[in-house]
């Protein structure tokens, strides 16, 4: 028996003495505010205070709690109260999974030092990883931890206001993620996974294994009742929920064991024999291989995307200057702090699956197909999502949870270990890119040729999207009359490459933007002016022949110009100092495919204003932004809105949180639903659109000039959802298919941006110190500037990782100490310039932003390194030894 004081109250536990304290807190004492991201001390999400000292609960034996004061995020202390308020004010929590650890680490600091400097705050949270925020707002919050309340919500217009996130209170209290709701008496599921990239396997005596005490059941591919092939793009669905022999990548699930509650879920002696087979791990070799991984995909080519416009060969011949460029990038892991987790149970005949996801309706439909159920028998209840960045678009544990709950007819739960999450889920495609860009003597770009091979791994996932998006975007936001661009997604026995913030466009931008710097140097032109000269303007057409409107790139570059001149002046004559610049553009929504969203708003007889918001908020802020848009469209204060969802039983389909589409597409649906409801109300009052609405309990008032019309809500008949007034509206962006040359209108609108990086390179060590990043992003209208700058800072942090440190190597970096992501000390101060070039297609003119923000960072860093040292990096990440070697190579 261990006795201790937990958050001021005497508690005890009776668990094994060396059990991790994090487990005891979460499982035995029900305090799930303490999060687990790695069980290895690497992420700090589990930070608690033991006698006032920040400690990783995952590394602390339960017995060590004896006689100690333990504080978790559930505590109510003056330090935590101040920190929570500051985190909300500053927008320091996005997905919220790191927030408890951040709060506790900061609480230790401000108890000793109530007014810390930024450097002190940085050291205090150096051991807590955040993948969403880029840390800047967290540091600002810790240095401003006063009781000042969050600003109150606006009574009038909500869009354009920097209001704190509407789901913020949950985030700073310790939100409920996939692993945090534990149904009573649930079996624990563990997957058996391939230790080899390619291996045949045979099972031993599964029946005997399943009969062991503590084991409730064992499932294999033979138990899958429906179609054992899923995939986000239905025609390419090829990935089994549980593989039949052979396994096609390291980490692929081949069997599932359900453990009865209270039994150690150890699978070490699971009866399986592996026979490793030759593995194709190099995409160039895979292109030559005699036998493709999947029948019907000769040469292992999943999809080859092509954009051809004009005559690039002739234009290149005539160009005054041509640069050739070649660069390769690595597998990049999403490294969200929440490993996949969830639970499933039956409610009557409905299978309920509560798990982290970015795409609830896709989860429902794909799981239904695997389990041979009609979709309406599955209800997906997304948990709070501890980061997604694209990887939680694909199914992971949903079919496994569903299968076991259905077969056992009892609740089940599953939490991936960090290693399992990293090995089995999707990655950013490694790219091998080469080609040429040519321009005339005046520095006007005339031609671009690009050829990229993208390692798409064992299964299709989003490979087709990457292969199609890259050629469309590879020109960057620059007018390029003659283009030939090819991107092929190639199967290997590597991890499945899928969606990761930008769908291949960040890789392509690295190639194009670094080549642009060399072209500008050839011309002797300022690198910013060269870009401005070529920036896409309204009425010009893109590589796909789409005539563009609301092009924001020139305004972004122009906004950077004074910063650029200042930075160049400061760097000049300073050895090792460099300044770099890169741009981005990105089409919002699916490429040439329908992707509608639907939003419902209702008012109950009691005067509750309810927004059914089905867009999963993975930290990016849909819960807040969609509510802001709906509120303004309707004309009621955003603070009156109560949010429901997402939940496939309660919210209409708002599509997936990907492709920077939610603010735009779901925003347009919210705009339409709000406007429709407003129109219905105005009709009742016979008022014009100039009227003002106010909702006060069961009284809805419509005021126009001196006339006031009151609608008694209680007197209206409720519909079957309980609403007396209700509107539901959909929006699907207008696009047109691409023809065989990739010509067409793939996206309804585009967002633009440009970033500038100031850094120093250590001349002897090749290490990089980032000084400042200035980011100008055109988002049409900043619906919420606080959330928008949060997206910018978080995207930049991921771009820093992509450029300087991240490289996933299967079997070697399946943890967060060998796989490095930026820490609080790696992200410099960031200045965001929000540029607003409204697009008539966007809600109130707004465009998407979520993916754009990551694209320019890596090439801007590489350009600054080259400016500082001459080093041309051809292989990412730019680790110190690679930079030093490139510096040597650059010296005459």
């Amino acid at each position, binding site marked *: 028996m261990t006795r201790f004081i937990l958050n001021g109250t005497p508690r005890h536990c009776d668990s094994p003495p060396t*059990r991790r304290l994090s487990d005891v807190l979460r499982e035995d004492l029900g305090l799930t505010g303490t999060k687990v991201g790695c069980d290895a001390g690497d992420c700090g999400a589990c930070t608690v205070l033991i006698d006032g000292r920040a*400690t990783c609960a995952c590394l602390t034996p339960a*017995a060590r709690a004896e006689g100690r004061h333990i504080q978790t995020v559930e505590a109510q202390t003056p330090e935590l109260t101040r920190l929570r308020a500051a985190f909300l004010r500053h927008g320091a929590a996005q997905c919220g999974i790191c927030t408890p650890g951040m709060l506790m680490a900061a609480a230790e600091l401000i108890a000793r030092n109530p007014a810390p400097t930024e450097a002190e705050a940085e050291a205090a949270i150096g051991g807590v990883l955040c993948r969403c925020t880029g840390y800047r707002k967290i540091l600002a919050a810790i240095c401003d931890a006063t009781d000042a309340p969050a600003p109150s919500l606006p009574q009038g217009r909500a869009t354009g206001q920097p209001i704190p996130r509407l789901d913020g209170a949950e985030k700073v209290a310790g939100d409920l993620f996939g692993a945090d709701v534990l149904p009573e008496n649930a079996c624990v599921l563990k997957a058996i996974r391939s230790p080899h990239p390619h291996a045949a396997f045979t099972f031993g005596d599964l029946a005997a294994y399943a009969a062991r005490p503590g084991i409730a059941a064992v499932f294999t591919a033979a138990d899958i009742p429906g179609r054992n092939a899923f995939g986000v793009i239905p025609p390419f669905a090829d990935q089994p929920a549980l593989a039949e022999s052979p396994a096609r990548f390291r980490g692929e699930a081949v069997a599932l064991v359900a453990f009865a509650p209270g039994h150690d879920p150890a699978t070490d002696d699971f009866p399986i024999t592996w026979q490793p087979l030759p593995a194709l791990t190099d995409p160039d070799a895979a292109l030559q291989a005699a036998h493709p991984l999947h029948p019907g995909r000769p040469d292992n080519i999943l999809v080859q995307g092509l954009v051809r416009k004009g005559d690039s060969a002739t234009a290149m011949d005539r160009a005054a200057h041509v640069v050739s460029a070649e660069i390769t990038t690595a597998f990049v892991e999403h490294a969200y702090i929440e490993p996949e987790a969830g639970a499933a149970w039956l409610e009557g005949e409905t299978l309920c699956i509560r798990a982290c996801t970015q795409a609830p309706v896709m989860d429902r439909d794909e799981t239904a197909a695997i389990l041979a159920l009609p979709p309406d028998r599955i209800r997906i209840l997304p948990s709070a999502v501890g980061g997604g960045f694209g990887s939680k678009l694909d199914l992971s544990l949903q079919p496994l949870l569903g299968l076991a709950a259905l077969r056992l007819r009892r609740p089940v739960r599953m939490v991936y270990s960090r290693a399992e999450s990293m090995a089995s889920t999707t990655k950013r495609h490694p790219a091998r890119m080469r080609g040429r860009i040519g321009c005339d003597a005046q520095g006007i770009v005339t031609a671009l040729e690009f050829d990229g091979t993208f390692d798409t791994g064992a299964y299709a996932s989003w490979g087709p999207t990457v292969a199609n998006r890259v050629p469309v975007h590879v020109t960057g936001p620059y007018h390029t009359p003659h283009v030939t661009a090819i991107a092929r997604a190639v199967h290997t026995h590597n991890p499945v490459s899928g969606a990761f913030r930008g769908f291949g466009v960040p890789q392509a931008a690295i190639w194009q933007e670094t080549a642009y710097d060399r072209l500008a140097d050839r011309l002797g032109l300022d690198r910013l002016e060269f870009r401005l000269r070529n920036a896409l303007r309204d009425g010009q057409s893109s590589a796909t022949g789409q005539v563009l409107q609301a092009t924001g790139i020139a305004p972004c570059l122009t906004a950077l110009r004074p910063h650029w001149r200042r930075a160049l002046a400061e760097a000049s004559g300073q050895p090792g100092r460099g300044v770099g610049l890169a741009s981005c553009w990105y089409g919002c929504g699916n490429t040439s495919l329908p992707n509608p969203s639907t939003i419902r708003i209702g008012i109950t007889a009691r005067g509750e204003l309810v927004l059914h918001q089905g867009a999963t908020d993975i930290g990016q802020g849909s819960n807040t932004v969609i509510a802001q848009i709906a509120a303004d469209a309707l004309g009621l204060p955003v603070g009156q809105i109560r949010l429901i969802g997402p939940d496939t039983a309660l919210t209409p389909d708002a599509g997936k949180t990907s492709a920077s589409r939610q603010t735009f597409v779901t925003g347009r649906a919210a705009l339409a639903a709000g406007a429709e409801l407003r129109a219905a109300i105005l009709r009742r009052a016979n008022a014009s659109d100039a009227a003002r609405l106010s909702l006060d309990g069961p009284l809805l008032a419509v005021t126009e000039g001196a006339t006031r019309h009151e609608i008694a809500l209680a007197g209206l008949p409720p519909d079957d959802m309980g609403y007396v007034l209700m509107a539901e509206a959909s929006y699907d962006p207008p696009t047109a298919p691409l023809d065989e040359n990739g010509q067409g209108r793939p996206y309804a609108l585009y967002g633009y941006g440009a970033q500038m990086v100031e850094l120093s390179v250590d001349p002897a060590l090749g290490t990089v110190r980032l000084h400042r990043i200035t980011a100008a992003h055109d988002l049409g209208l900043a619906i919420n500037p606080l959330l928008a700058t949060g997206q910018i800072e978080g995207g930049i942090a991921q771009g820093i990782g992509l450029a300087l440190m991240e490289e996933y190597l299967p079997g*070697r970096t399946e943890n967060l100490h060998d796989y490095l992501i930026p820490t609080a*000390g*790696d992200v410099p101060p960031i200045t965001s310039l929000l540029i607003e070039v409204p697009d008539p297609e966007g809600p109130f003119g707004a465009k998407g932003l979520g993916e754009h923000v990551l694209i320019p960072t890596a090439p801007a860093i590489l350009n600054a390194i080259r400016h500082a040292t001459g080093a041309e990096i051809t292989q990412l990440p730019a680790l110190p030894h690679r930079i030093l070697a490139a510096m040597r190579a650059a010296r005459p």
Partner: protein
Amino acid sequence: MSYARPQTLTEAIRLLAGSQIRLLAGGTDLYPATQSAALSGPILDLADIAELNGITPWNGGLRIGATTSWSTIAEAPLPPALRALQQAALQVGGRQIQNAGTIGGNLCNASPAADGVPPLLVLDARVELAGPLGRRDLPLAAFLTGPRRTARAPDEIVTAIFIPEQSLAGHSSFLKLGARAYLVISIAMVAARLTLAADGRIARAALAVGACGPVATRLAALEPALTGLTPAQAAQSITPETLSPPLAPIDDIRATAAYRLESAAELLRRALLDCAP
């Protein structure tokens, strides 16, 4: 699975004798090595043994108890000769790791990248062990016999690290190189300690390098040549060639061997300049 948390060293040694019991200090190496919810097998927790914890005067020098945490070391008022150790203490993981992880655990875990080792090597530290046959102490370099291997017998406990009196002289510096700011496994790290004569020239130099071979290495052959030089001259004399041998770095996912040698030389040059009081 048994768990013991004795109050005295005598009791701990008795429990350890002839058993398969594993020693637990801060747990920051033990827990990450398992995926289970608890440590497996019998565990002997050293946390309550008072004599293993804390920094005390010893024979004119210092005794650092084996279970002294990195934060305690960082926060203690120590002479400038131990500045390298304190700088290392602030770079072992993040603050949570420093609050739990111990100096004894760092040495016993014997990772080639253990940050505690180079600063202790330049202090000529000795490791004290206690077992059923009594106590013995040996130089740190003799204690570390290879990657993840030490001279500790299975029935012995590391009780303390001794810093001899003559090692408290001079100034020291620790520098660590990695690909990110916090929570980073060293690509290379170095420690230097210099005692300067009245004219500012080096009277005695001690240099050590970690993460560039199976164990961290004291550069004993190189040190005498630095006597009589200014720190700046000494720094100039360090080149990658002068380090190979004794260093034998390898290529791995973090860096190439050649880069490790070069960066070790550069870090040593900087550490020498940083030692000047």
